[in-house]
């Protein structure tokens, strides 16, 4: 897996077998457009359905993971939902569709955070399972500022309170505080920190480890975590039993055989 960037404004993708890297944002500004959101979302859907895909890494093309979003033409498939009303912002359909797909995809997802992660970049990072950050990265959300005000309704108001607690979410979204990567790590938002020079190696090591895991097992655990955020405990137990009884994990056989043989598992991810 290489983390070298490409200067194109379409979702670059580099694959090393089962490890997928998707690059986001304009190479100059770090902003992501509705067109690019739609392309990434479309690509994620097919990756999610591909049993050969074991991990998906999102990283920025520019000097930041993602600095936010910029308006522009929408992907054709959303055209019927562009219900713009004079004096109001366009509905955030491409933004929401990408965040929903990213948050629920049954694959391990990792966001690589560097530079100043802002606005919709924070939504994208928060929709991933794990975040690895350059120690010098900063993380914040300036969308409520006067003049540049945005409606902040692309996922962060749901994701951030759950990721870091309501109080920290208020600090970041409402107060507008910017966090250093080390603070983001301390509060659990960032899974691992690395120096800039070591960031690619750290991400590759994590990606490689995740790609060797029983991906179907990971995906089903993720399906339960995500789905049960909005369920009562009673319903969550029922949901777990339903997931357990309606999904086959082929790697179960390998787990048992490796256990009996006393060797390391060689999972296929199925």
């Amino acid at each position: 897996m290489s983390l070298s960037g490409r200067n194109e404004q379409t979702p670059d993708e580099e694959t090393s077998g089962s490890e997928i890297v998707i690059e986001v944002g304009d190479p100059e500004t770090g902003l992501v457009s509705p067109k690019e959101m739609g392309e990434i979302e479309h690509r994620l859907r097919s990756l999610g359905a591909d049993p050969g895909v074991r991990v998906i890494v999102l990283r920025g093309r520019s000097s930041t993971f993602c600095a936010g979003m910029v308006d522009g033409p929408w992907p054709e498939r959303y055209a019927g939902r562009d219900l713009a009303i004079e004096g109001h912002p366009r509905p955030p359909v491409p933004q929401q569709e990408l965040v929903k797909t990213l948050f629920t995809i049954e694959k391990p997802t990792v966001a690589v955070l560097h530079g100043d992660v802002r606005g919709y970049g924070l939504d994208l990072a928060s929709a991933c399972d794990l975040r690895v950050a350059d120690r010098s990265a900063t993380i914040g959300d300036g969308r409520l500022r006067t003049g540049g005000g945005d409606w902040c309704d692309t996922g962060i108001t749901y994701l951030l309170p759950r990721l870091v607690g309501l109080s920290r979410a208020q600090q970041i979204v409402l107060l507008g505080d910017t966090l250093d990567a080390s603070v983001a790590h301390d509060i659990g938002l960032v899974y691992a920190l690395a120096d800039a020079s070591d960031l690619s190696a750290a991400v590759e090591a994590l990606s490689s480890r995740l790609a060797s895991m029983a991906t179907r097992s990971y995906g089903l655990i993720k399906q339960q975590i995500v789905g049960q955020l909005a369920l009562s405990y009673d319903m969550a137990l029922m949901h777990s039993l339903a997931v357990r009884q309606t999904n086959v994990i082929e790697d179960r056989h390998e787990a048992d055989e490796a256990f009996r043989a006393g060797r390391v598992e060689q999972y296929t991810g199925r």
Partner: protein
Amino acid sequence: MSVMIEEDVVIEHLDGWVSIRLNRPAKLNAITVAMHDAIYEVVTELAETSAPPVLVMSGSGNTFSAGDDLTTTSNQVPEQWAHRQVGSAPILLQAGTRAIREYPGPTLALMKGYTIGAGWDYATSCDVRVATATCKIGDVRVRRALWAAEGWTHKAPRLMSLSAAYRVGPTGDIVSAAEAARLGLLHRIVADAAALETARDEVLGRFALRDPRAYARAKRRISESFDRSLSTHLNAIEW
């Protein structure tokens, strides 16, 4: 079941509290379906008493529990559960941990050594968690290509946070006590197993100051609060 209770799960009625001790130290207190059933039986019985005592869960030897005993299978499920058993679904593990989580009295987990898998399920079902500094904590079922359908996927994001749930759950990571405390899972860290008893007595002293009915009510309502709006929550008060 009485043999199991005496051998693999030791239940002791003490002064104001009941000890539930996992007692298979040679197997790192790996929990069998019969042990889940024993825990379920005793906890549901105590829950129906007029003054439910404090429950203290612990493990014999050097560990709390290293997880499910994967050598026991669904055909060993006690007769009374057979009608609900489909395949190897974790019916009894859900029942045991649910009985602890919904127990109206205070519950305390004393964690040492490994608190993994089913041990993690029981610890995250208790109200208060105290661990030794060397305790290792995690789910790790993903390492065995399992489903993790026991209930922690609901509890962990609420006990800690969504980011912490990913940290401890699907990644298969085992975290230190210090890391678990940082993530909000532990309420006390003590130096060693001997200090667990001192911490237990301190927590029991705190529990003794709580009004049992108020405690039961607050405990239930804290757990329920995540799943509804404040208005719905306030309107749902039962008198």
